[in-house]
């Protein structure tokens, strides 16, 4: 649905993004992740045709953005970081304006009614945008992007500046929209991307640092798992015992947590919780705590940003992940 190839953009002489490439299938939600100033908004601005690229191509549903911008733009609903709202208009008039601007051919009243319902802004339709709260403004921004039912939605930090309840609402909305739209959203909140997106691209310093499915990055689909154990007993013999269990690939001691109790991290390629319990019970060691450690996106993200991830991936599977 969305094909981005080798996008490169300079602002004056400074490089904003370089050779950014990725593709996204219909009906998927892609998360663009990266520190501030990494090039997320630039990438989105180019995809939506707001600015142009110095090199590269963007194809939306097979239509080239640079060759046929008007056709390609019809397929995109864009919610920029700052919602493009006219403060002097009422929500109703603003949405009608955007409807006409986008030359939508649907029945206007029914279409706008549905959008207002979906984004829950029905009760403020008559209000002047200037007087709306941040959360409502954000939702009107989203409503504006939905006008014309575009198959592709591009949302630049849709939850920025919202309160926790609104963030949950907005995420729910984006997930809901993802069912019948292809969505690209950017965020620097990692847990959000993890919760909402099917696929994640990490942009760092203007280049794609990682491109993977969420499950790959979080390690949940990779088959390796980590366990955190706190065991009462002698550290060295517990360590030796754990290492002998089949399936365990690595055990590391984390030191004493309380008197006579030690913490261990057990890495394995199968589920070893039962063998670990049996082995320790047989040797009369008490397990005080056993909990799985999911490789959090946060950890991976920090690795990626610092450049460790790509090295590790290259070691693991010969750089299968395209970057």
């Amino acid at each position: 649905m969305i094909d981005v190839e080798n996008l490169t953009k300079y602002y004056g002489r400074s490089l904003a993004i370089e050779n950014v490439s990725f593709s996204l299938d219909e009906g998927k939600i892609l998360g663009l992740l990266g520190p501030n100033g990494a090039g997320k908004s630039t990438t989105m601005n180019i995809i939506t045709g707001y600015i142009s690229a110095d090199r590269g191509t963007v194809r939306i549903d097979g239509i080239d953005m640079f060759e046929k911008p008007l056709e390609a733009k019809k397929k995109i609903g864009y919610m920029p970081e700052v919602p493009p709202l006219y403060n002097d208009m009422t929500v109703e008039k603003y949405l009608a304006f955007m409807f006409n601007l986008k030359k939508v051919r649907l029945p206007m009243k029914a279409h706008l009614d549905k959008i207002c319902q979906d984004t829950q802004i029905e009760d403020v339709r008559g209000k002047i945008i200037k007087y709306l709260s941040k959360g409502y403004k954000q939702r009107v921004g989203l409503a504006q992007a939905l006008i014309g039912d575009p198959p592709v939605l591009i949302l630049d930090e849709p939850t920025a500046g919202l309160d926790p309840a609104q963030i949950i609402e907005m995420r729910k909305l984006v997930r809901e929209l993802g069912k019948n739209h292809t969505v690209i959203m950017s965020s620097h909140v990692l847990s959000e991307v993890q919760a909402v997106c099917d696929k994640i691209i990490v942009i760092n310093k203007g280049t794609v640092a990682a491109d993977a499915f969420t499950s790959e990055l979080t390690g949940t689909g990779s088959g390796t798992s980590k366990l955190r154990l706190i065991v009462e007993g002698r550290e060295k013999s517990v360590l030796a015992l754990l290492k002998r269990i089949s399936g365990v690939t690595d055990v590391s001691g984390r030191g004493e947590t309380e008197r006579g109790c030690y913490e261990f991290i057990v890495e394995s390629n199968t589920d070893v919780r039962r063998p670990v319990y049996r082995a320790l019970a047989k040797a009369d060691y008490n397990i005080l705590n056993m909990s799985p450690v999911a490789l959090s996106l946060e950890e991976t993200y920090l690795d990626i940003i610092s450049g460790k991830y790509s090295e590790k991936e290259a070691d693991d599977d010969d750089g299968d992940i395209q970057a």
Partner: protein
Amino acid sequence: MMAIFRRELGSYFSSPVGYVVIAAFLSFSGLFFYYYCLYAGSSNMNIVFQNMFSVVMFIIPILTMRLFAEDRKTKTDQALLTSPVKIGSIVMGKYLSAMIILLICLCSYLVEGLILSFIAHPDWSVILGNIFGMLLLGSVFVSIGIMVSSLTESMVIAAVASFAINILLSLVDALASTVNTEGARSFISSLSLQTKYNSITLGIISLGDVVFFVTLTALFLFITDRIIERRRWA
């Protein structure tokens, strides 16, 4: 284009700008009309129109200052430029909205002509010709204002820079008189808006002058289009 035109026109009246500009125009036009026609006992409105040159010159930048500058400042240009609309249509929509405000202002002359017709016999062809002339002149000022507005995020800068350009244009005649070379002088004075406008106020509407005003308008609007397109590449 129509969507933008309607929005901009509505925006003039949902903020004080439209009212202030129209009120200012009507005050000056009424004042000059009273002074040069009613008080002086003349049915000749030419002099009213001639005096309005500088008023139009100052009022129009107020009308055009926000057209693109505000969009950039509030980031609403992102909505415009990512919609399936050509930049040219956006420029035209905004241009037409400002022209409508000017047209509303110019309607005051019909009222003034009507008042005159109760007490004298005004020359309607001259009044209509003058309205047409002021529309042409205003159109050039509007297109200059739009062009300047597209260059900045600040409405104040847009207004001041438009004033400056308009004043410079009105000084072309003075500049021409300082040039000694005959060819250069006639070339410079041929660029004078005021000379051409004044000849229209006297009832002389030449095709050349009309083409001159229309071409200038088209040129500035085209430059605006290029400026916005250029920024996408910056």
